[in-house]
């Protein structure tokens, strides 16, 4: 886990980093971040609590606790990752731990869109290839480079074609995934609108 959190901003076209494998199908949002963390005032503290219950059970041998994974930023998962509730807390916990991209066999729909909204691209690969990466990653730590435009992931001795929804890809390359940034671009239009509205002077807050 990285100590300082800086969220992604604007266009996202390249992501590189070490990867961490998490083996298992149907890992739900409750396992990613247990429900008791929902009553919180900010997402800041979620990073350290990601997978808290699973990690407690595994007493230090959970992939997120292994020393060699501490600075990993690409998560490799299996099928239907992020199923369960619609809480945005799950991707927030992952991004705050340090995850910047996820590659998996498949994702739950709401989890997927929550990831896009906070700047985590999620890619898919066929089951076999995921398993190969996970096996390889278990024996030595793997450094991956993702090129979003061409949808390829490369390491020293591998190069694979990734799948991502065309609309999501466009949003990352243009920066439109970041609604705030897109809206901020029209700042002068907003000022103009503010001045033009008849009621601003009627309603004094």
């Amino acid at each position: 886990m990285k100590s300082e959190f800086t969220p992604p901003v604007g266009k996202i076209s390249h992501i590189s980093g070490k990867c961490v494998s998490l083996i298992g199908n149907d890992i739900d949002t409750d396992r990613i971040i247990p429900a008791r963390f929902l009553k919180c005032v900010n997402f800041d503290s979620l990073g350290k609590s990601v997978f808290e219950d699973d990690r407690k059970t595994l007493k230090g041998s959970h992939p997120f606790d292994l020393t060699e994974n501490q600075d990993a930023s690409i998560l490799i998962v299996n099928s239907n990752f992020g199923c369960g509730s619609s809480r945005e807390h799950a991707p927030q916990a992952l991004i705050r731990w340090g995850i910047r991209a996820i590659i998996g066999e498949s994702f739950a729909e709401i989890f997927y869109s929550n990831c896009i909204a906070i700047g985590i691209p999620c890619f898919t690969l066929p089951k076999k290839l995921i398993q190969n990466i996970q096996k390889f990653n278990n024996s030595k730590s793997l450094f991956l480079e993702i090129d979003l435009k061409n949808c390829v992931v490369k390491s020293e001795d591998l190069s694979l074609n990734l799948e991502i929804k065309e609309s999501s890809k466009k949003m990352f390359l243009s920066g439109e995934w970041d609604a705030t940034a897109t809206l901020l671009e029209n700042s002068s239009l907003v000022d103009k609108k503010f001045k033009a509205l008849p009621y601003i002077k009627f309603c004094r807050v």
Partner: protein
Amino acid sequence: MSQDTLFDKVWDLHKVSRLPGGSDQIFIGLHLIHEVTSPQAFGALRDKNLKVKFPDRTVATVDHIVPTDNQSRPFKDNLAEQMIETLEKNCLENEIRFFNIGSGNQGIVHVVAPELGLTQPGMTIACGDSHTSTHGAFGSIAFGIGTSQVRDVLATQTIAMNKLKVRQIWCDNKLSKGVYAKDLVLHVINKLGVKAGVGFAYEFAGPAIDELSMEERMTICNMSIEGGARCGYINPDEKTFNYIKNKLCAPKNETWDEALVWWKSLKSDSNSIYDDVIKFDASKVEPTITWGITPGQSVGINQQIPFLEELSPNDQLVAEEAYEYMGFKPGQSIKNTPVDVCFIGSCTNGRISDLRVAAKVLKDKKVSNNIKAFVVPGSEKVATEAKQEGLDKIFKDSGFQWREPGCSMCLAMNSDKLIGNQVSASSSNRNFKGRQGSPNGRTLLMSPAMVAAAAINGKVSDVREFINQ
């Protein structure tokens, strides 16, 4: 596509741009925040190194987590204390006006903004809370938003949104005695279904709506969201203007005259085009009560819980779930269902007129044995006014507990909760499983007058039998 309705006019007025993705960038005239959905948004702003763009277009209050028995600080519940502290800090740092406990103006956000005169015709109003639709009663376009949109409003005063379609709900004639706005809106949701409003703004209109007071109109718009419509509104009229006049944040003197001219120009044209129009006869509505686990599952007081065959195939699945959860049998009458807890409050029916109606029923009567009954005023102002009128005394004399303002058992984020499978007669807006704090607690939604009647008899009763005495 709708044309020349109030919704179209207000939308066009607030449109900043068409975004490349196809949605509109909409300016938000008034942004309301509370302790539950704002902290993460402020956090996101800090993460991105952004500032609040127009701090004086946002107003805060605290409502969801406040205790209603003892409000002295620090709160007994650490987490609640942490949430209010965070809101205090965020408002202070960002120079946002905060109506805190003890200010005389704290309360449920949707009760507070209208009574301060902040809610006005022709505005766009957003809040991280689905019942923001309430404010549409004044002819504003008001809707709930998610946390990431709260962040966007703070940072840019705008959100990205697709324009809604407009459905007019025309209500003919008028409500009969002992039948209230709550009954009408429950009836409408029952007939149209809880999903019918998805993608729509609901315009409530017609003689029955014109007849309603502003507070009753708020009850109607408040529950638009339970019919699936993110936004509900009513064209403004003299009642609207009179309600706003002299309120704390209302325009004064020449600005008032100017405002009035503009407000009067704001309504759907007589030949405006709607995406859909549905008519109701308000005079046919009876006191209405929910029997199930969605606000659409309701019946009139003299009706029976429906048989499966009477329901559309779409509704049958959730009906079966509801019989089982509520412990009701199809064909059973709703009248005389025993209740354990009676709750008067919430942003639907926690206003002064609601308390007046309930107090009138309760005067010189006693709450039935073994019933826990409590009234939670919607705001400090409502509480003060009620005390001035002696309503608190009527409630207490009858056996109701008189509490401090907040959301309370509407969603039970504080310590007011159902226990086990208790049945509550509630003036709130949601009867979802577990909504009132117990995973198997059961909620019957009804008007505040009907809650009062249920409290007296210890079972679901027809309030008309009380007011005609």
